[in-house]
C-alpha cells in the first residue's frame, strides 16, 4: 500500500519516522512542482524526529546527564540535613543563654529572654524550608522517572499524565508560596466562620 493512501492508524514515533520517509520517497516520484514546499516541510520534520530520538537515546542511565537530576535531589536532601544541624546548633546556643537569664538582673533577663524566644521562633525556618525542598526533590524524582521511561521506550508514547491527588492525599501540599499563603489572621477568620 502506498504511504500516501495508507489509513491514518495511530503511529508510534518509530513508525512515524519510517512513514514520513516513505511519504517523502513517494512524493519525490510525483511529477508536479507543487510537491517541493511539502517535501521541504516533511524533510524538516523527519530530520527533527531523527535528531530528537538520537538525543533521547544518548541519555542512558549512568551517564552524567542522566544522573544530574538524582544528584541534584541528593544535594537538596543534604541541604535539608545541614540546615537541620545548623538549626539545632543555634537552638542549643540559645538554650544555654536562656539558662543564664536567672543569673542576671531583671531588665537584662527580660531582654535576653525575648531574644531567645525570637531565636526559637526563627528556628522553625528549618521545618518550612525542609518541606519546600522535599516538594522539589519529589518533582525532580518524578521528572527522572519520566525521563528514564522515555529513554527506555523512546519509540512509544510517554505515560499518561500523573493522576491528580484525591481525598486526604490532596490535602498534603506542604507550605504555600508566600504570595499565595494564608496568614494566621486569614486562618483565624476562616476557622471562626466555620462555626
Amino acid at each position, binding site marked *: 500500500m502506498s504511504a500516501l493512501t495508507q489509513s491514518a492508524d495511530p503511529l508510534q514515533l518509530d513508525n512515524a519516522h519510517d512513514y514520513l520517509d516513505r511519504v517523502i520517497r513517494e512524493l519525490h516520484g510525483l511529477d508536479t512542482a507543487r510537491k517541493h514546499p511539502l517535501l521541504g516541510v516533511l524533510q524538516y520534520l523527519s530530520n527533527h524526529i531523527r535528531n530528537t530520538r538520537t538525543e533521547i537515546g544518548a541519555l542512558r542511565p549512568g551517564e552524567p546527564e542522566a544522573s544530574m537530576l538524582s544528584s541534584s535531589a541528593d544535594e537538596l536532601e543534604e541541604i535539608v540535613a545541614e540546615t537541620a544541624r545548623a538549626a539545632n546548633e543555634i*537552638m542549643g546556643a540559645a538554650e544555654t543563654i536562656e539558662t543564664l537569664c536567672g543569673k542576671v538582673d531583671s531588665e537584662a533577663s527580660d531582654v535576653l529572654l525575648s531574644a531567645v*524566644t525570637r531565636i526559637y*521562633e526563627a528556628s*522553625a525556618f528549618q521545618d518550612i524550608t525542609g518541606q519546600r525542598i522535599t516538594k522539589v526533590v519529589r518533582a525532580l524524582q518524578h521528572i527522572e522517572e519520566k525521563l528514564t521511561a522515555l529513554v527506555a521506550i523512546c519509540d512509544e508514547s510517554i505515560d499518561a499524565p500523573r493522576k491528580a491527588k484525591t481525598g*486526604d492525599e490532596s*490535602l498534603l501540599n506542604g507550605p504555600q508560596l508566600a504570595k499565595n499563603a*494564608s496568614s*494566621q489572621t486569614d*486562618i483565624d477568620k476562616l*476557622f471562626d466562620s466555620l462555626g
Partner: protein
Amino acid sequence: MSFNKNMRVLIVDDYTTMLRIMRNLLRQLEVMNVDEASNGEDALAKLRKEPPDLIISDWNMAPMTGLDLLREVRADAKSRHIPFIMVTAESKTENVIAAKQAGVSNYIVKPFNAETLRAKIASVCGVAA
C-alpha cells in the same frame, strides 16, 4: 484568659527540630509537663497509655498524618474531649475546613510565634483569670 501551667501536653511532629522548638516555647510559657511523639501512630500509643490535657500536632507526617490522628482521637470516647491544636504549614482553605470537620480545637499556621501559641492554648484550655 490564662491556662493551667501544670497541664500535660503531647506534642507531635516528625521534625525533631520542631519538637525542640515547641518544647522550648512551651517552657517559656511555663508549661513543663511535655511529652513528644514523632508521628500519629506514636502519639496514639502514648495518649492511650496516659491521656494528655492537650495535643499539639503537625499535619504532614507519615505513616499516620495529623488529620488521621485527630480523627482517631475524636473517634475514641476516652480521648474525644482532649483539646487538639493543629500546627502546620498546610494553610489552604480546604485544609482548615477538613481539620474543622474532623473536630480540631484550633489551627496554627507555620511559621508561628510564641504569642500565637500562647493565645491558641489559652483559647482551647483557658480559664478566666
